[in-house]
């Protein structure tokens, strides 16, 4: 049946409300990962990790208008409106850059531990936290003086960080250890840990629920973790290979980017249900949110997706990713260069065999 064949009429037409609206997809550069929003200037900043720069996106024109050279392999970002500074975690430089948002120049470089891959600012407490993956630690930096206040031992793969000021608590998730470390912000001591799924790489906290949500990229789940007794309460379903997570401003939902699906999951924090999966660019990762507008950095397509979440609340049923439309169809023929030999090889070589094609990227 083609589109023209679909009968339209009051008795048979169903007008479903779309859960999201794509506003723009902006080319930004190589392997964009972290994203931060500067509402005062109407800008988004996107860390282009393999270009060693930060793309400055004008949100009025949806275009990249400048680039800021920072350290090597910037992965995560945080913006501090009070000092008008942008901070970047430069994984291969073992540093954090402070950038003046007016001049777009680096004004300070702060040494941290090995391979910082996560960065979170607590504006009220005037601190910034860096998760040092290969240093297995978390650096605590004064947001105004840039002095390192403490370096707290975490576990291997320490990266993403979230805080709960009501509990004087910081949670640092450890990718390689598949765990989360709980740190008391009054004493900078470790007060607990929990094992989560493999590839733990993002975290968000909803203090009023007393829960942390931890993305397990390799396990393909989101763990709901109690902030009171540090136990996993349940595993939530999202899309394939989830890697990024941000809590919505009303704390009623989290946004999870699914690197394997090319989508953004909207998940209720109370019901744990996947409310929607919104299409974004290829291989999405870092997320920032302002109201119902969500910004997603897409490492595969080298773009920033700007999407409006149109859901007022939970839908009647959870969103389920539909089966791929090409299942049951013949595989399109391919003719591609062999990485090792340089020879062109075609799908005919694999005719009459059962096989798996694994699409991957090295980043």
């Amino acid at each position, binding site marked *: 049946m083609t589109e023209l064949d679909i009968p339209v009429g009051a008795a048979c037409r169903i007008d479903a409300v779309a859960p999201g609206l794509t506003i723009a997809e902006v080319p930004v550069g*190589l*392997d964009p990962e972290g994203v931060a929003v500067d509402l005062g200037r109407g800008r988004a900043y996107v860390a282009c990790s*393999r270009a060693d720069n930060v793309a400055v996106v004008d949100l009025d024109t949806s275009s990249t208008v400048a680039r800021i050279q920072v350290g090597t392999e910037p992965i995560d970002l945080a913006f501090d409106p009070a000092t008008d500074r942008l901070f970047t975690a430069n994984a291969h430089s073992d540093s954090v850059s402070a950038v003046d948002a007016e001049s777009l120049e680096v004004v300070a470089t702060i040494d941290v531990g090995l391979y910082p891959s996560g960065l979170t600012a607590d504006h009220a407490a005037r601190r910034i936290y860096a998760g040092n993956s290969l240093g297995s630690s978390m650096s605590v930096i004064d947001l105004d003086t840039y002095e390192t206040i403490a370096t707290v031992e975490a576990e291997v793969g320490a990266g993403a960080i979230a805080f709960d000021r009501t509990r004087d608590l910081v949670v640092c998730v450890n990718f390689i250890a598949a765990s989360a470390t709980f740190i008391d912000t009054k004493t900078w001591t470790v007060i607990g840990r929990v094992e989560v799924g493999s590839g733990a790489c993002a975290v968000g906290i909803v203090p009023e629920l007393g829960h942390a949500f931890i993305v397990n990229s390799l*396990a*393909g789940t989101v763990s709901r973790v109690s902030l009171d007794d540090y136990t996993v309460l349940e595993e939530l379903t999202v899309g*394939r*290979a989830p890697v990024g997570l941000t809590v919505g401003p009303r704390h009623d939902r989290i946004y999870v980017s*699914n*690197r*394997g*699906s*090319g*989508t953004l999951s909207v998940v209720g924090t109370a019901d744990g249900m996947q409310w929607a999966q919104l*299409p974004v660019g*290829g*291989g*999405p990762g870092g997320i920032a949110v302002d109201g119902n507008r969500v910004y997603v950095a897409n*490492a*595969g*397509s*080298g773009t920033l997706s700007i999407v409006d979440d149109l859901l007022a609340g939970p839908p009647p049923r959870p969103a389920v*990713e539909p089966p*791929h*439309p*090409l*299942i*049951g*169809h*013949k*595989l*399109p023929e*391919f003719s*591609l*260069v*062999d*990485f*090792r030999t340089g020879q062109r*090889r075609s*799908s005919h070589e*694999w*005719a*009459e*065999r*059962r*096989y*798996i*094609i*694994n*699409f*991957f*990227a*090295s*980043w």
Partner: protein
Amino acid sequence: MILIDIWEGTDPKPDVDRFCEMWGIDSTILLDETAEYAAALGIRGVPTNVLVDADGTIVDIGLVRLDELDAAIDRLVSS
């Protein structure tokens, strides 16, 4: 198993070499540098696995988790 590398953006050689060494990969690796073939298959993310039957029919697409992949391979082998 065929691996198809996409979305590198620059010369893939050093990064793919490092990736193969890290994960101990010695399978066939093909380069889809423009991601044109991936787009033809509607691939929107990585990793994505595509299971192909002996008559060239796609039996599944997606399957990132090991348990899902194992189950799909069992179905493919026994079909």
